[in-house]
């Protein structure tokens, strides 16, 4: 009796999770298989005929292959931003965790503020223009870095505090300069929490909708989330294409997830919980 409990609860959990979590995704997939007319009724029905390929082709080719541009842009944006975030936040976390300087307090206040304060859009646009960064991918990258730094720093700082200082000291005795200590000893040890950072931030930045809308105008600068507008206009919506689009832009985060799946929990243990 007792041995069967895991099985029974497992089956129950699978059933519930199927309805709550899987069906919505099946819905998206079904919709992506339908033609425009069937999709317009938006019911959970088996697709009549196989229209995925033509939907895909249409989604990808619409507006001069905007989807390809968008994928390139979003990939660059995500990869560069996350790389910068990882390195810069880890450096800040390192110094914050190791130094007992008197301005640690104010710095931590500013970091918390960044987590809480909604960004002021219009002044930021003016500023970016002054820097000639408005509407450029560089500017957008810097914005994503600036907006997501606080969260990353908090993760790293908590984790670095658990790394014994003696490791730094051993490295110093071994002749390591500060950059050596950081890049050769500390950064590799941050891997678990870096995984968490990569997953959370890359998904967040790849899926960011609002910020590119403000700061990255222009057809050549489109990011994947903005492609949703192609099929959801004010006046009518092509649901089959819309959902094909959703399906398509969910693939990269899915890959990130599959790649790091096993390590996510470890990273959370290391970073978020000990803070």
């Amino acid at each position, binding site marked *: 009796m007792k041995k069967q409990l895991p099985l029974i609860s497992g089956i129950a959990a699978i059933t519930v999770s199927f309805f709550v979590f899987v069906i919505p995704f099946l819905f998206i997939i079904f919709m992506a298989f339908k033609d425009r007319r069937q999709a317009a009724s938006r019911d959970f029905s088996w697709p009549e005929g196989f229209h995925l390929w033509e939907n895909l082709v249409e989604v990808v080719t619409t507006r001069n292959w905007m989807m390809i541009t968008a994928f390139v842009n979003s990939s660059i944006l995500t990869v560069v931003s996350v790389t910068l975030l990882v390195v810069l936040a880890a450096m800040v976390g390192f110094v914050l965790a190791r130094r007992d300087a008197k301005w640690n307090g104010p710095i931590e206040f500013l970091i918390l503020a960044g987590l*809480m304060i909604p*960004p002021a859009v219009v002044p930021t646009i003016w500023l970016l223009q002054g820097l000639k960064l408005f509407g450029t991918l560089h500017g957008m990258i810097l914005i994503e870095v600036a907006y997501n*730094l606080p969260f990353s720093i908090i993760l790293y700082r908590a984790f670095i505090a658990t790394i014994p200082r003696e490791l730094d000291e051993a490295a110093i005795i071994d002749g390591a300069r500060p950059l050596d200590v950081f890049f050769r000893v500390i950064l590799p040890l941050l891997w678990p929490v870096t995984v968490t950072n990569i997953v959370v931030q890359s998904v967040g930045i790849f899926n960011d909708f609002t910020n590119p809308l403000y700061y990255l105008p222009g057809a050549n600068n489109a990011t994947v989330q903005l492609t949703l507008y192609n099929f959801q206009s004010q006046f009518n919506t092509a649901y089959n294409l819309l959902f094909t689009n959703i399906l398509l832009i969910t693939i990269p985060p899915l890959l990130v997830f599959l790649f790091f799946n096993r390590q996510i929990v470890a990273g959370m243990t290391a970073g978020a919980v000990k803070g």
Partner: protein
Amino acid sequence: MSVTTADSAGALQTTVRKKPIQARYPGWFILPAAVIYSVLFLAPTVSSLYFSLTRWTLFDSVFIGFENFAQFFREPFLVQGLINTVIYAVVTSGMKVVIGMAFAVLLTSNIVARGYLRSVVFFPVLVSTVGVGITFTVLMHPTQGMINETLALFGIKGPGWLTNPSLALYSVALVDVWKGVGLATVIYIAGLVAIPRDYYEAARIDGATPWQNFWYVTLPLSRPATATVIILSFIGGLRTFDLIWAMTKGGPGFASDTVASVIYKQYQAGFYGLSTAGNVVLFVLIAVLVIPLTMILNRRRGHE
């Protein structure tokens, strides 16, 4: 070779400092991050404090003192928006705590198909908020939506999830939980995994029931995870915008407006000063709620 008394080396005080020992944790490590953060986030934020005191159009701005704030608080739905914001934050973070904890307990037990369940629960975290919003708007359609069609099979007439003004906010909150509970679960799983097995073994020797196990061991010892989940999802809930905008645009009417969506509406309408003032109001609201919350959660943690 012997102990010399302290006076014998007075002349040594005048050691010449050639170069100070290299700082081991040099301040410039902070510099790149500090520059990006200050220029692109802090500077606009601080300047927005001034802009919130002006009425600005595309090309000029007029200083009008606190008129924007006065106007903002005259907004007929601001008070409702404030209440909605708090309700939304409390409901979403509360549900994420409870459900996330429950999932985590389930998924750290020796349940079958654990890997599948973990993936499935985490998966919505990966999908774009806008995509989730669009999907659920369709699913929650009052007559053609899958949810109500399913309910209809059981003879239940489903409500207008997003069209009933007293329900819309909660429906969006529900979707928020659906999307975000995976992250809470992972944080909790991490917290549970970190609890040493000794405690459970000790509790078993003491004859604890599973429920007592949970209540006296799991719950108190996963408090750091709870603190993380609450603070992250509470701040997220207070700032929430994407999902509400994608699903209801604050509607029907103004029924699911939150401070963030009110701000965005002002911004869209070109009332930049008003919108910036709203930003300041939102910041104050968050600070007033989150800072004490953080302090309470951290203080408790300190006692462990």
